[in-house]
């Protein structure tokens, strides 16, 4: 439901930033000289929720939760330079760089130790879904290779996550039922047997002359299809 809400409101404003952020980790790296590092970041970058990694993983955690001092200064019209002092941390002698990475999916999976999502997004997100299922008492496994990973439960639910470099799609399947979200084309297919309320909302809307702004909505007996008009151009 969150995906439907975000898609249709994003279409209304033609601002798809929320969807884009979910696709891939955003990483910015900088040099580490002695115990002081510096990274140039876009001014919107969420410092407190970004993961700092330095000295090959000796330091790794959300910046807002690490006992280190960091100072921000303007470095351009839309850029800030973050200076980080790691003087209080015992670093290996040869430590040359640090990075800050932001990805909204961080923390779903085995927090706070695993932030390794770059180049393996599908695996990371599949792991997140597995974690959510397990947390709710459903045993699940992750399998697959190449560009996709599948989360499977004993009850026959399968969640296929595609896109190792950047998340492309998530598909939920159970027997003949199938619901999918394509982040690239900004299109959602909702199976009425899986999400009856979400399907019914669209069905009721399409009985009226009202239409969603900048959304192509169609329906058949089994699915409601919602897609950004023109694939969400003019972002």
């Amino acid at each position, binding site marked *: 439901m969150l995906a439907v*809400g975000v898609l249709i*409101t994003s279409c209304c404003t033609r601002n798809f930033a929320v969807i884009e952020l979910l696709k891939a980790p955003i990483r910015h790296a900088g040099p580490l000289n002695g115990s002081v590092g510096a990274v140039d970041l876009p001014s919107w970058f969420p410092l407190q929720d970004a993961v700092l990694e330095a000295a090959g993983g000796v330091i790794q955690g959300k910046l807002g939760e690490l006992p280190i001092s960091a100072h921000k200064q303007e470095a351009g019209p839309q850029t800030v330079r973050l200076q980080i002092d790691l003087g209080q941390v015992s670093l290996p002698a040869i430590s040359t760089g640090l990075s800050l990475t932001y990805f909204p999916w961080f923390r779903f999976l085995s927090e706070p130790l695993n932030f390794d999502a770059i180049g393996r997004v599908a695996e990371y997100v599949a792991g997140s879904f597995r974690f959510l299922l397990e947390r709710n008492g459903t045993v699940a496994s992750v399998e697959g290779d190449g560009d996709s990973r599948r989360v499977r439960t004993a009850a026959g639910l399968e969640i296929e996550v595609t896109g190792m470099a950047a998340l492309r799609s998530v598909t939920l399947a159970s027997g003949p039922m199938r619901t999918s979200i394509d982040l690239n084309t900004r299109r959602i297919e909702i199976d009425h047997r899986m999400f009856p309320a979400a399907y019914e909302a669209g069905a009721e809307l399409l009985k009226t002359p009202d239409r969603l702004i900048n959304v192509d909505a169609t329906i058949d007996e089994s699915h409601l299809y919602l897609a950004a008009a023109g694939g969400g151009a003019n972002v």
Partner: protein
Amino acid sequence: MFRRAVKQSDRDPEVLIDSKLGDSAYVDTFGLEWQTFDGFVGKEMMSHGHLFGRFMLPKDFFSGKAVADIGCGNGRIGRLVAPLCDSYVGADLSEAVHSFPKYTQRPRKFSLVRASATDLPLEDASADATICWGVLHHVDEPVVAFSELVRITRRGGVILLYVYPQTLDVRKNLNAYMRGLPLQRGHEILEQLSDALDVWREIDSFFAPLLASNLALSFKHSKAWQKFQWYDGVTPRYHWSLEKRIPELADQSACS
């Protein structure tokens, strides 16, 4: 005070029913919401700020005045004003009016009436101050309702009005999507939405507000209040964008 017959409600003699009360089905959701949740308790200061704060009204502003509160719901604003004025009439199309609290101190004259904002049973120029708080954008014919506010307010009186700001226009798609659903289904969807957002809220202090902002839904301290506010904002059948039109309507009505 009334220009046509009103009758006592069987349910509560303090509540009157307009003899011309028509179809009120579309406000059933509001009736249920306001009877299920009390949007006032624990939010006294916020409610006070909504009215007195926004208009910088002195504490004795309503003293000696005849007040009409159109779309009063369960008295979220009315219970602040009623004890301070000379007379108070709260009107609402929905059954929420039955939930106006008994503990609120009544002024010299006090009435609650189920009536439509587009055809009020109140006499012309019967109010010194007319309040219409967060209501017009949910009325089927807001221009007609506005003219009713003007009609019942005496010349030189004041209309205190709140309509959704244009920034909430981003809810248009969500509103259109939700409005055909029966109440139970609508609640179901908002429950899911609220729970999903709360998960993000737990893990990412940047992304969760971004999501909420994208959906034009704000987080509340209380889960029940959060869902209620969202439901109030997203599901109603009518969801007009009026912010720009109100000054124009006021000019046409020779209001200031």
